[in-house]
């Protein structure tokens, strides 16, 4: 027999796992990983699982993780885009598992985009 507390624990655990079944437009953040051939070849799978793990562990309910096709700047893959309600999207490049975790902590939890990892920053540096 399960106690009231045990049932609540199941609810909490499952809520995290089923979060991505809420319609994407109801969440505050949408994190999109480029999962075309180019992305996957560059390691987007690891990026994705790092993102999903981190979000589940930190019990973030206002985020959905999604995937998309080729964004068109393949040499910067793996690419992760973060859409925040009411703000311009931020495009991160060369996102490995470590960067993914930093993005969750910095951008989503603390609300500060990590400028050095963004596409705009890289383009400016290259000039």
């Amino acid at each position: 027999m399960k106690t009231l507390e045990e049932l609540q624990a199941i609810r909490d655990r499952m809520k995290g796992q089923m979060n991505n079944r809420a319609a994407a437009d109801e969440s505050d953040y949408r994190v999109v990983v480029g999962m075309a051939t180019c992305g996957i070849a560059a390691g987007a799978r690891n990026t994705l699982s790092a993102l999903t793990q981190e979000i589940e562990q930190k019990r973030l309910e206002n985020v959905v993780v999604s995937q998309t096709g080729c964004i068109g700047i393949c040499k910067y893959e793996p690419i992760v885009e973060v859409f925040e309600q009411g703000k311009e999207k931020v495009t991160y490049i060369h996102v490995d598992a470590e960067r993914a975790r930093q993005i969750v902590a910095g951008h989503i939890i603390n609300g500060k985009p990590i400028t050095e990892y963004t596409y705009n920053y890289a383009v400016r540096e290259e000039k």
Partner: protein
Amino acid sequence: MLERAHILVCGGTGCTSGKSNEIYAELSKHLKENELDKEVKLIMTGCFGLCAKGPIVVVYPDGTFYQHVKPTDAEEIVNEHILKGRVVERLLNDDKSAGTDEVKSFNETPFYKSQRRVVLKNCGVIDPENIDEYLAYDGYLAYQKAVTEMQPQDVIDVLKKSGLRGRGGGGFPTGLKWQFARDSKSDQKYVVCNADEGDPGAFMDRSVLEGDPHALIEAMMIAGYAIGADKGYVYVRAEYPIAVRRLQIAIQQALEYGILGNNIMGTGHSFTLELRLGAGAFVCGEETALLNSTEGKRGEPRQRPPFPAVKGLFQKPTLINNVETYANIPTILLKGADWFASMGTEKSKGTKVFALGGKIKNTGLVEIPMGTTLRTIVEEIGGGIPNGKRFKAAQTGGPSGGCIPAALIDTPIDYDNLISIGSMMGSGGLIVMDEDNCMVDIAKFFLEFTVDESCGKCTPCRIGNKRLYEILEKITKGEATMKDLDKMEELCYYIKENSLCGLGQTAPNPVISTYRYFKDEYIAHVRDKKCPSGVCKALTSYEIIPEKCVGCGLCKRVCPVGAISGEIREKHVIDPDKCIKCGACIASCKKNAIKK
């Protein structure tokens, strides 16, 4: 582990008959082949509602809505969408009326936009065979709240305040019914769920059982607590095999978790639940017949009063409610009576689920706030009438209800409005008819059903309805006189007033309401010996219009009885004595040269 995508395959009865089991198996196979089975979760859910477009597969988080999916499409969905992140465009909507091709999130489509999902909130979202998924969406929290924070009377007071009325047809205030059951004193009481759903074309209750069985269990437990009963029965028809199996699984899981049983979750409250399978007689949906059948007796109605709340199952006080009524209750307790009462009209609160069928593009299951107009249902949610035909009427309430003619299409749908225009809410069947439907034929169809299903216990229903049916037959054959129409009307009211149970009391309703709104059609059958819609075969003849006929011979070739003669490039003619009025020639003629 949080998966990056969830693939939801509809496991409702409609999609299952469209091979959704195979689709599931194929998807599973291809996910494994690509080693994606750890990253992607595959779930079989209950009905999504848009049955016309089934089998349906939805991919989250983006909410891509694939329709008419075949098992052979599974590979492409996995390879393209999951692996490469490209939506499989060809499986998106083919018809602009549901609009899923412009917006990918299906909640924004016309079919879903005007709906409000309370009863169906978990259908097509959770895996009905996994209690943990139900728990994730606040499952059994309402029960917990009731038992730990509320007195039984508080629960009933919330229901009274919410304004919830029975969804099984009668629309009796649920809180009041619970109060009667609570106030009856007895050593033993029962909670019963009416899941018989006998209306032809209705599948609201089935979809709740298939898509969200735990919601019913939770609500019945709450009822047990509120009225003081520790035993419940669900009476469900055996023709609903998927619903029965999912309920059995749900009960089993609830038992394993100690959610059903003795001293539930350590709260001191006990409740157990059993299934009773019905053999599918319409009359067994009538509550007293259902109680007889549950006891193992013949499914015949009993005299009322005494009402079940006083003397029900095994002569003990019994609360009996419909599936949809119950399914509202956990949400009402969690969100409050005021939230519920904020939806709907003055005397009809909340939402109602309808099984939308007949001449409509988006056939399926819809849930709308009470007070939505028929026009919204038909034109927006339903996507209108196919083939550019004109809306003629809608039948609500199945064989006990009546029709709503086109002139009343702006009537807000609620219990009292429907009664006042001569129809009724019924359990939620909504059949749309277009100009090709003959209203006499429709009335005859429903009456044939009730004649068949009459239990035979009382004479007005057993014999009266049979006689009524015979008059309708005469009308459709062109053998009736104007006097028969008067007799028909008189008989209708006699049957209504003198039958023992609701079946007989409502059986003439389809006749009364079609006669009220389409009297001219009845008269055309009787006086002019014509069926204006060309449905009644005895009153239609097929004719080839010589000016239009080009003598192609197509009709001659398709006629199954050789009733058409004529040489190539010459005018053809139909022999009325041989013609069986099957309509094959009309369908074949490219020049529209054949008329009824």
